[in-house]
C-alpha cells in the first residue's frame, strides 16, 4: 500500500506540470490568436478603405484618352486630314519632393526654361495640382529619346520615363498632308478636337472621337496583366467627291490667273453635271491648316459658298432660259438691238458695242444687254422670278458645307420698275459662285436640276460605307431648251466674248460676266472694281464638267470675264478632261491672240469720256447717271466704264430720295463680303 501511495505522489507533480505547460501553450496561442484577430479587425474594419485605395493605387492605372478623330479622304482615297497618336509629357508635382532639383533636370533634358518650369511646378504643388504639361504632342521617336535622357538610376516606376513625378499622357494631333489644298473645304479642327470650319465642322458628329477610359492592372514588376477598356462607337471617315489631283490643278490655274490679273482674290468650282459631285472647289489666296497662327482670317472663308456677288452677264443664261422655256424664241429667230440703247422705267441701258439685228445666239454671244432686257421684258416678272427660284437662286444649294448663304433674290412685289431689266443682266441680285455653277450644271444636265454634293460616302467602323441620300431629280427646263442654251453657250466661245475659253481638242461652251463691285464706303458701285467671271462646260454637246471661275478685282490685262476668267477655265478644263477620261471631240486650238478678243468692257477714249459707252455687262453712261442721281437710285445698276486713270474715282451713283432707301439697303447687301 505504501508503495502505491508513493507512486501516486510521484505521478501528481508530473501531470500538473504537463497541465500547466499545456495551459501555458494554449494561453500563448490564445493571446497570439487574439492579437492577430484584433489586428485583423483593425486592418479590415478601421483601415479597410485606406488599404483598399492603396492597393488599387499600386496595381491599377486608369487613363482617359480620346479616340483618334476620323479621316477625311479625297475621292481616290488619299487622306486629306488625318489624326495620329502623339504624347504629352506632364509632371505630377505632388509626387516630386524637391521641385527645384527636379525642374533643373527636366529642363536640361527637355530644353525648356528652367525658371519658368520651377515656378510652374512649385505653384502646381502648392495648389495640389497633378497635371503640369511640359512638352505637348511629341511623336514616338521623341518619346523614346526623352525616356532615355530623363531616366534616373535607382528610380523604379511602372511607366516611363524613369523619373519620379513624370508621366506620358496619350494625345492626338491633326495633320493636313496637302497643306493649303482645299483648306476652306476640308476646314480645320481646334485643339479640343472640334471642327470649326468646313467639312471638319459640318461632319463633326461623325469625325469626333469619343473619350474612352482604359484601366490597366500591373504586377509588382509593372507588367500589365489585366486591361479593361471602355468601348465606344468609333469615329467615322468621310470621303469627299473632291479629287486631290483635280483640286491641285484648279488651284494652280486659279492662282496663276489671279496673279496674271493682279487680282485681289479668286474662286473656282468644278462640278460633274451628271451627278452634282464637286470635283474641285478652290479659293485663292488660301491658308495652311497646319499652321493656323499664320492664317489670315479672311482667307479661311469659303467664298464660293459664303460670299455673295452680282453675277453680271452670266445671268443672261437664266434670262434666255426662261424665255426659251416659254417658247418665246428659237435659235433661228432674230432680235433687234436697235441703236444699242433701251430705257426701262426712265433708266437707260446700253450695249458696249452695237450688234444690230442678230440671231439670239449672236446676241447672247456678244452679251447684248438690250437684247437680254428685251427678252426679259417678254418673259415677265413672275415667270422670270419663277425660273430664278427653280434654278436655285435665293435658297441654299444643300451642299454639306457649313455657313452657306442663300444669296439675295427679292420677290417681285419688292422690285422697282427697272428691276426686271437689271436682274436680267445680272444686277440687283446676289448669288454665290456655287449657285451660279449649279444653274449652269442644270443646263448641262438637260434641264434636270443638279444638287451639288461634296460628300461621296461616309464610313463608320465595321459598317459598310453609306452614301448621302440622293435628292429627287426635278426638271426645271425642257430638254430642248437646255440643248438650245448649250448651243448658245457654245456660240459665246466660238464667236463671242468667251473666245479665250476655246479648248485644245475639246468643244466648250460658256458665258462671260463682268460686274462692278459695290463700294460700301461710298455706298455706290465702284467703276474701278470688277468681279469678272466665266462659267463654262465641256464638251459642249454632252458636258462632263462645268467650271466656274470668278476673279475679284482684276487690275491687269484683260479685266473682263473673257480676258481674266476664261483663260483660267481653259487651263482647268484642258487638264481635267483628259484625266477624267473624256475623249477629245474638238479641233486643236492654239492660244488666242489678244487682239482677237471681243472685250466685254470697252475703255473709253479720252475724247469720248463724256459719252462713254460700256460693256456688255455694264453699261451706263456716267454722265447720264449723274444727271439721274437725284431722282433715281442707280447704285445697283450696271455701269462699267473703266477710267484710264483708276486713281480718279468715277462720279458716284448715289441713291437719293425716298424710293432709294430699299435699293440702297439692297445694294449694301450685295457687297462682296463674307456672308454666313
Amino acid at each position, binding site marked *: 500500500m505504501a508503495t502505491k501511495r508513493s507512486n501516486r505522489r510521484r505521478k501528481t507533480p508530473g501531470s500538473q506540470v504537463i497541465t500547466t505547460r499545456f495551459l501555458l501553450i494554449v494561453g500563448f496561442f490564445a493571446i497570439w490568436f487574439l492579437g492577430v484577430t484584433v489586428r485583423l479587425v483593425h486592418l479590415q474594419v478601421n483601415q479597410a478603405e485606406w488599404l483598399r485605395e492603396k492597393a488599387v493605387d499600386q496595381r491599377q492605372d486608369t487613363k482617359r484618352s480620346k479616340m483618334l478623330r476620323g479621316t477625311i479622304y479625297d475621292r481616290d482615297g488619299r487622306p486629306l486630314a488625318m489624326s495620329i497618336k502623339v504624347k504629352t509629357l506632364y509632371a505630377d508635382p505632388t509626387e516630386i519632393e524637391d521641385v527645384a532639383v527636379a525642374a533643373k533636370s527636366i529642363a536640361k533634358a527637355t530644353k525648356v526654361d528652367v525658371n519658368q518650369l520651377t515656378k510652374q511646378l512649385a505653384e502646381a504643388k502648392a495648389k495640389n495640382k497633378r497635371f503640369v504639361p511640359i512638352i505637348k504632342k511629341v511623336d514616338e521617336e521623341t518619346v523614346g529619346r526623352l525616356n532615355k535622357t530623363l531616366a534616373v538610376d535607382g528610380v523604379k516606376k511602372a511607366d516611363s520615363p524613369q523619373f519620379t513625378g513624370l508621366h506620358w499622357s496619350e494625345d492626338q494631333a491633326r495633320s493636313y*498632308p496637302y497643306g493649303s489644298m482645299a483648306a476652306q473645304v476640308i476646314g480645320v479642327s481646334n485643339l479640343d478636337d472640334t471642327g470649326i470650319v468646313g467639312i471638319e465642322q459640318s461632319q463633326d458628329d461623325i469625325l469626333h472621337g469619343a473619350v474612352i477610359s482604359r484601366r490597366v492592372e500591373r504586377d509588382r514588376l509593372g507588367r500589365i496583366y489585366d486591361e479593361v477598356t471602355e468601348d465606344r462607337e468609333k469615329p467615322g471617315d468621310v470621303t469627299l467627291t473632291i479629287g486631290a489631283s483635280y483640286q491641285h490643278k484648279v488651284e494652280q490655274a486659279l492662282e496663276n490667273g489671279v496673279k496674271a490679273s493682279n487680282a485681289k482674290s479668286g474662286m473656282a468650282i468644278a462640278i460633274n453635271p451628271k451627278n452634282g459631285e464637286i470635283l474641285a472647289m478652290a479659293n485663292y489666296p488660301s491658308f495652311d491648316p497646319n499652321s493656323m497662327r499664320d492664317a489670315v482670317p479672311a482667307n479661311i472663308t469659303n467664298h464660293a459658298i459664303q460670299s455673295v456677288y452680282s453675277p453680271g452677264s452670266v445671268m443672261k443664261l437664266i434670262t434666255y432660259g426662261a424665255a426659251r422655256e416659254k417658247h418665246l424664241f428659237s435659235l433661228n429667230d432674230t432680235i433687234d438691238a436697235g441703236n444699242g440703247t433701251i430705257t426701262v422705267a426712265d433708266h437707260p441701258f446700253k450695249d458696249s458695242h452695237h450688234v444690230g439685228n442678230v440671231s439670239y445666239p449672236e446676241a447672247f454671244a456678244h452679251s447684248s444687254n438690250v437684247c437680254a432686257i428685251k427678252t426679259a421684258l417678254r418673259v415677265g416678272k413672275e415667270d422670270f422670278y419663277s425660273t430664278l427660284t427653280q434654278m436655285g437662286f435665293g435658297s441654299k444649294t444643300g451642299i454639306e458645307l457649313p455657313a452657306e448663304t442663300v444669296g439675295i433674290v427679292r420677290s417681285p412685289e419688292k422690285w422697282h420698275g427697272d428691276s426686271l431689266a437689271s436682274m436680267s443682266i445680272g444686277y440687283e441680285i446676289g448669288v454665290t459662285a456655287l449657285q451660279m455653277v449649279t444653274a449652269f450644271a442644270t443646263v448641262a444636265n438637260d434641264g434636270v436640276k443638279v444638287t451639288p454634293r461634296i460628300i461621296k460616302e461616309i464610313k463608320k467602323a465595321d459598317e459598310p460605307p453609306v452614301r448621302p441620300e440622293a435628292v429627287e431629280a426635278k426638271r426645271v427646263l425642257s430638254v430642248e431648251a437646255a440643248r438650245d442654251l448649250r448651243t448658245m453657250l457654245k456660240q459665246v466661245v466660238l464667236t463671242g466674248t468667251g473666245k479665250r475659253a476655246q479648248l485644245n481638242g475639246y468643244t466648250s461652251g460658256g458665258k462671260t460676266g463682268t460686274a462692278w463691285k459695290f463700294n460700301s464706303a461710298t455706298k455706290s458701285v465702284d467703276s474701278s472694281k470688277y468681279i469678272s467671271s466665266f462659267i463654262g462646260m465641256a464638251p459642249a454637246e454632252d458636258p462632263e464638267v462645268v467650271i466656274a471661275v470668278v476673279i475679284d478685282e482684276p487690275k491687269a490685262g484683260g479685266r473682263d470675264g473673257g480676258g481674266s476668267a476664261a483663260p483660267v477655265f481653259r487651263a482647268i478644263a484642258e487638264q481635267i478632261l483628259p484625266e477624267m477620261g473624256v475623249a477629245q471631240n474638238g479641233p486643236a486650238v492654239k492660244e488666242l491672240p489678244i487682239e482677237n478678243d471681243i472685250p466685254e468692257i470697252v475703255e473709253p477714249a479720252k475724247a469720248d469720256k463724256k459719252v462713254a459707252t460700256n460693256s456688255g455687262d455694264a453699261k451706263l453712261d456716267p454722265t447720264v447717271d449723274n444727271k439721274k442721281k437725284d431722282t433715281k437710285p442707280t447704285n445697283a445698276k450696271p455701269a462699267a466704264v473703266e477710267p484710264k486713270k483708276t486713281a480718279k474715282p468715277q462720279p458716284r451713283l448715289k441713291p437719293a430720295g425716298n424710293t432709294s432707301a430699299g435699293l440702297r439697303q439692297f445694294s449694301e447687301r450685295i457687297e462682296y463680303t463674307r456672308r454666313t
Partner: protein
Amino acid sequence: MRSRRKPAIKPGPELINERWKLYLVMIVISAVIVAGFFLSGKQHFSSWDFSIRNSKLRKQIDDLETEKRRLILARETANSPTELRRAISKIMPGATTVAPTLASATKPAGKQEDKTVVAASFKKGDTKAEPYSIVKTAMVLPAAKTPKVERPSRTVARNNAE
C-alpha cells in the same frame, strides 16, 4: 480482483485491410486535391502570363497602327505639291520650278498607266530602270470590312481571360 478494463482485442486481418483501404482513399483524395490546387495554380499563372503577353501584343498593335498612320501621313506629305516643289528646288536650285501635277489614283480607260500604279507594280526581278523610288509602306486605301449585323453602342470589354 477482476480487472475492469476490457481485454485488448488484437485486430484481425480484415480490420487491417479496412484501415489500409481507408488510408489509401485518403491518400488518393489528398493527391487529387493537391493536384487540383497545383493545376489551378498552374492555370492561374499561365493565364497571368498570357494576359501579360496579350497586353504586350496589344500595345504592339497600337504602336504599329500609330506607325502605319504616321507613315501614310509622311508619304502623303512627301507627295504633296508643296513638298514636291520644295524637293525640285533642292535638287535643281537654278531650274525653273515646274508645277508638279498629281496623278489620279483612278485610272481612266484608254489612258496611260498611272505613275503611281507603275511604281507599285514594279517587281524586284525587273531589269528596267526603276522610274520612281519605291518606299515600302502600309497600304493607303481604307479596306472595306464586312458589315456586322448588330453592334452594341457601348460595351465594356475585359481583355483578361480570367
